[in-house]
């Protein structure tokens, strides 16, 4: 017994080192696994407040650029609204209660943007109290950004598409072949689309959009265009480099999408799978 105690006293530094290292290692392993509740996260009060202060100062420098983008988007929306109006005049509306569409868009600001790691996360200045919850999609006017991973009452953490664990389902705009988006951690503006069968008609410059299979994003949200493609080793699937429409290094305001029918859809999907 005495020897055992002596051993501990003699090696107390090394034991402390192992203990702390195990803690750090555990936290690291946890951060490498997708979608788990995390103890160490920037959605806490201190870092959230600090980031929103700096964001308050920071945003003044990009006001002009943002106004331009908002104007452009307004123009686009007005355009499609007019088109919709002229279409709907011809139709007879029977049941107005069916017109409630399932997606709600809420605007939020990115207060911390990261793209230099292998697994990147963004921080939003809105959380539970703004009805932003786990598994809601995040997009900008140009294209998709990521999926909300966890949220505190005032902040939420978004798993970026620039994350090796993120895998968002996407399809070609001009056909229904779908695959999943991954990232090889090299260029923050180029992601990889895999599992597109070789039968699919693809060429450089084609657009890639979301396909709505995950119930997180509505179908048809733009992602990017094909920059380069090649067949994989098995010669049966394409490996496509997709240039994002978004500049992931410069994201200001975003829209968070809530799908009100998601639970229902998931339930039905599960029953189907059995």
């Amino acid at each position: 017994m005495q020897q055992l105690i002596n051993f501990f006293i003699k090696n107390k530094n090394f034991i402390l080192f192992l203990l702390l290292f195990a803690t750090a290692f555990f936290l690291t392993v946890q951060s490498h696994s997708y979608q788990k509740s995390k103890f160490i996260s920037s959605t806490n009060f201190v870092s959230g407040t600090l980031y929103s202060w700096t964001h308050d100062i920071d945003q003044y420098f990009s006001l002009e650029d943002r106004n331009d983008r908002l104007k452009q988007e307004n123009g686009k929306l007005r355009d499609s609204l007019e088109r919709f109006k002229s279409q709907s005049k011809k139709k007879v509306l029977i049941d107005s209660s069916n017109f409630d569409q399932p997606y709600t868009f809420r605007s939020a600001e990115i207060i911390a943007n990261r793209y230099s790691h292998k697994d990147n996360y963004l921080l939003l200045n809105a959380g539970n109290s703004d009805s932003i919850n786990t598994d809601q999609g995040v997009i900008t006017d140009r294209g998709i950004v990521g999926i909300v991973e966890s949220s505190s009452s005032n902040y939420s953490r978004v798993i970026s598409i620039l994350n090796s664990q993120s895998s968002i389902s996407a399809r070609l705009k001009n056909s229904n072949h779908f695959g999943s988006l991954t990232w090889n951690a090299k260029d923050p503006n180029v992601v990889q689309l895999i599992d597109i069968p070789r039968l699919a008609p693809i060429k450089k410059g084609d657009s890639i959009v979301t396909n709505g299979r995950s119930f997180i994003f509505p179908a048809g949200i733009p992602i990017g265009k094909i920059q380069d493609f090649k067949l994989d080793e098995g010669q049966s699937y394409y490996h496509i480099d997709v240039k994002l429409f978004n500049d992931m290094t410069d994201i200001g305001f975003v829209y968070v999408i809530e799908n009100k029918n998601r639970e229902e859809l998931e339930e039905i999907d599960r029953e189907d799978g059995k």
Partner: protein
Amino acid sequence: MENRPARHIIRFVFLVLLQVLILNNINFMGLINPYPYIWFILLLPIDLSKWKTLIYSFFIGLAIDIFEDTGGMHAAASLVVGFFRGTMLRFSFGISYDFQNLKFSKTPFLQRLSYIFISVLIHHFIFFMMEYFSFSHILLVLKDTLFHGIFTLVILGIFNLFLGNQKRG
């Protein structure tokens, strides 16, 4: 070296804020950021007991992790630097460390450089091992260690100049 705790606390806060507010947003040539916060560990008092060194190193790493959402990667890397600090001090400064009369700001340039260089190398290597988390990415780890390490060394060089001035003034 000063042993007043206030100076170390201020240095801790300053380095964490510098890291998360400014340096994490540099992204030089796309992806390169320096991590000079290990300056805090390097400048801890020489006669500080080892277990305290370990705990302080762990917590400055963890503070960075919280802001960067990197799990425990910085904590692990700086903990390892804290663990080998004694060894590196003895290796770089030799006999003057053993006699406990080391004044960091009065050490020869080359000895100081070797101390800083080895620490940065260890820290960055462990950090990027943790980040890529696989041995098959070892080349990427080494590449990142080199590029980020050079950047960190430049920043630490600038800190080093300030240290000299502080003492003279």
